[in-house]
Structure formats: structure tokens, C-alpha cells
């Protein structure tokens, strides 16, 4: 292979790999952003169940976090990626004997990341729940709000403000965990960088680029979260 300069390799277009890596970055960001709302909602409900007075609800939520925080991310991913088609196929074949199921790696990654993210986020939400004094609930009920409206109008705004720094950490680890989905052939940043590395034999260069991409994403996230934090702080009642 003729020695190509680093700048050709990193250029945009047929000779360079920047466009491939950029499309991988888009997939990474899309995966993380698609997971975030699902994970937040599940995490909130798991935390809600964990601090509920009903023991059965607490037990169910505790099993959830024990399992998904205890399993390595990679094992969860493989279990879902290989196990889910089998299970779905088994169920679907009860109705339609000829069906075959393939799981899209983006969807599988999204489910697994949401499970992991939500079990970590639920711990953050739980400690935020515990930081809210009981009087806030009682005050809500006293002015005639229903349970649901107290939760939505009184508790949730305070909860989000308390939980925000912890959720930021969860988001950063979610961003890093997206790289694991490259193992099941999703064409995200690390996967595309790996392909470039294998084709051009410049492994160090391209894996450094991948590392740099994740660093830049982390820096961008902290800029964004600092902005959100400021605007949350401004709305705080004094």
C-alpha cells in the first residue's frame, strides 16, 4: 500500500475516512438521545416504586435494579441481542409457524442501554425523592391537589432540580456505553473507526480519533448541562 499522508486519510470524501466517522458520530448521538427519554421515564417510575410504602412494589423495583446494575453491560447486550430473537420467535411461531425474527442492532442497543441507564438513574431519582420533605406532599394535598397533580406540579419540579447533577453523570456514562453496541455491528463511531483502522492499518490514528470524538461529546454535554443547570437555578424559588 502506498504511504498515504495522515491528512489524506482524515479528509472528507472517497480517500478519507472523516465522512464515515462523522456518520458514525451521528448514530452514536442518535442512539444516546433516543435512549435518554425512555431511560428517564423508566428510571423515574422505578424510583417511585422503590420509595413507595407498598412492599410488593418496592420488591419488584429492587429486583430490577439489582439485575441490571449487577450484570455487565456487555452480557446484557449479548443476552438481548441473541436471546431476544429466540424468545420472540418462540412466541410468534405459536401463531405463525414460518416467521423468522431479526433484531435490529440499533433497537437492541436502545433497549439494553435504556435498561442500564434507567437502573442507574433510578438510584439518583430515589435519593432525590428522599431529599424532598414530607411537608411538600402534605402541602399539596392540603390545598386540594390530587395525588397525581401533587406529584406533577409540586414534587417533580423539585425532584428534577435535585436529581440533575446525578443524571448528568448517568448521561455521560450512557454516552460512553453506546460504544459497546459497536460489538453487535451497529455502525457507530467506534465501529467505523475500527473499519478505517483495519483497512488503512493506521489503528492508533483512528482509535485516537474515536477517543477524541467521545471527549468532544463529553465536553459538549458538560457545556449543555451547565446551561440547563443555570436556567434551572434561575427558576428556583428563593
Amino acid at each position, binding site marked *: 500500500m502506498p504511504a498515504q499522508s495522515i491528512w489524506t486519510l482524515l479528509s472528507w470524501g472517497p480517500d478519507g475516512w472523516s465522512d464515515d466517522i462523522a456518520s458514525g458520530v451521528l448514530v452514536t448521538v442518535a442512539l444516546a438521545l433516543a435512549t435518554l427519554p425512555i431511560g428517564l421515564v423508566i428510571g423515574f417510575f422505578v424510583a417511585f*416504586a422503590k420509595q*413507595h*410504602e*407498598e*412492599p*410488593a*412494589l*418496592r*420488591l*419488584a*423495583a429492587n*429486583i*430490577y435494579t*439489582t*439485575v441490571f*446494575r*449487577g*450484570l*455487565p*453491560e*456487555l*452480557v*446484557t447486550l*449479548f*443476552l438481548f441481542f*441473541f*436471546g431476544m430473537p*429466540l424468545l420472540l420467535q418462540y412466541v410468534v411461531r405459536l401463531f405463525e409457524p414460518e416467521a423468522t425474527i431479526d433484531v435490529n442492532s440499533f433497537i437492541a442497543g436502545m433497549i439494553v442501554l435504556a435498561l442500564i441507564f434507567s437502573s442507574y438513574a433510578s438510584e439518583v431519582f430515589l435519593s432525590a425523592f428522599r431529599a424532598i420533605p414530607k411537608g411538600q406532599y402534605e402541602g399539596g394535598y392540603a390545598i386540594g391537589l390530587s395525588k397525581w397533580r401533587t406529584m406533577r406540579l409540586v414534587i417533580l419540579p423539585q425532584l428534577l432540580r435535585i436529581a440533575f447533577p446525578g443524571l448528568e453523570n448517568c448521561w*455521560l456514562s450512557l454516552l*460512553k*456505553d453506546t*460504544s*459497546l453496541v*459497536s*460489538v453487535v455491528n451497529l455502525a457507530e463511531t*467506534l465501529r467505523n473507526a*475500527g473499519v478505517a*483502522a483495519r483497512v488503512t*492499518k*493506521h*489503528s*492508533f490514528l483512528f*482509535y*485516537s480519533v*474515536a*477517543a477524541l470524538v*467521545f*471527549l468532544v461529546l*463529553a*465536553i459538549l454535554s458538560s457545556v449543555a448541562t451547565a446551561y440547563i443547570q443555570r436556567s434551572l437555578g434561575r427558576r428556583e424559588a428563593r
Partner: protein
Amino acid sequence: MSVSQAIAVDRPPPQARGWPRVRIIGYALVGLWGLFGVGIVAYLVHAWNADFFARYAPAYLQGLGTTLSLVAISMVAGAILSLPVAYGRMSKNRILSGLAYCYVYFFRGTPLLVQTYLVYYGIGSFRPELQTVGLWWFFREAFYCGVFAFSLNTAAYQAEILRGAIESVPRGQWEGAASLGLHKLQTLRKVIMPQAIIVALRPYGNELILMIKASAIVAIITVYDLMGNAKLAYAKSFDIQAYIWVAIVYLVLVEILRHGVEWIERRITIHLKR
């Protein structure tokens, strides 16, 4: 008003009896988990294959040994490496603290998988240079590369834990020790560390658990640890129980560690409870 009446008034409202909606949901969810667990057990019993077990159980055991030694070596190496990094982070020297900050930011800001690739494939691609320096034997082995990447990674996290724990001890403790004539190292060892360890124990335990979980990724760079053996077993047999068994082993391992850390924490904070 008599005392007994006052107590009767303060009593919390009685527990809701009967079947309120949350209780039904709670039982349904627990039932779902139960069903899931029974399903897995039933599957494992149904798919029980003495041949599979005889062939792969020793490999799994060996893989468990590899995983544990990888994590143990990395944790210890990371702990040693974290000392200068934590020192740098707390130093007043701008250059030193800047360097330590960059180190920590890089290793905490990028995925461990990328770091592992960077070491195994990235550094490994400089084979002629490494051979000249005489380090090729190290970077040729996937296991050593894994240990190298994991040690660097956990050093960054451990440095932050150490720094947080030391900074959580109030400054008056340093000043008090200095006024008693202890020098800095003595103060650190006899006054600061005993207080810092209590703060640091839980984060260290979490870091250990995170390392055990993260160690599964060395399977991707062809190390036959627990996960690597599961991958191999699955590739040979296409039997999903390869992953189910490995999941159970990891789960048990993590739970044992988690309860162990909690037990130690209860023991060393016994003097703080009344």
C-alpha cells in the same frame, strides 16, 4: 389528657387494607419477575445438557480465574498509579495539577472499550518500534494489554476517589496535627487516612464492582476471561444458555462483593453509631 391518649393521637394512619391499585400492580410486577425467574430455571432444566456442561464448565471456571486476576492486578496497579495522580490533582503547582486534570478527564471521558482498543490495536500497530525498545512481548499479549488499559483507567477513577476522600477531611485536622508537631506524612497516615478511608470505602467498593463488570469487554480483544469463554461456547454451540450461565455467575459475583462492602462499612463505622 393522659399519656396513653396522646400516644393514640400521634399514631400514623393504619396501613391500607384490601387491594388498592398499587398493591395489585406491585403483586403483578413481582409475579412477572417470578414468572421470568421460573421461565429461566425451566429453560435451563429443559435445555440441560450434560455434554455442554462437561465441556464448558472447566473453561468457565478458568475464565473466572482470568477475570478475577485481571481485576485484582488492575486494581492494585491502578491504586499505586492513582497516588501521583491524586497528588497532582491536589497540588498547587498549576502545571502539575493541569496535567493530572487532563489525565483524569481523558480516562473518564472516553469509553473503556476505546481505551482498550487504543492499547491493543493502536499501540500494538507499532510493532517494529516496540521490538526495538523490547516491549513487544508485553503488548503482544491481549491479557497484558487489558491489564494496562484497565490500570490506567481505574487509576483515574481511584485518584478522584482518593482526592475526594482526603478533601472531605476538614482542614482543622491538618492544622491540629501540625500544631502537635506531626510532619505531613505522619499526619496523613495517622490522622487523615483513618477518617478518609471511611468516606472512600464505598466508592472503592463501587469501583471494584464496576471493574468486574467492565472486565467483560476484554473478551472482545480475544482474552478468554469469563465472558470470552461464554462467547466461545456460544460460537461453538449456538446455545443461548452459554450467556445465561455467565450472566448468573456475574450477578452472583457482584452481589457477593456488594454485600461484602456493606458488611465492612458497617464494621468500620460502628464507632459512629449510637
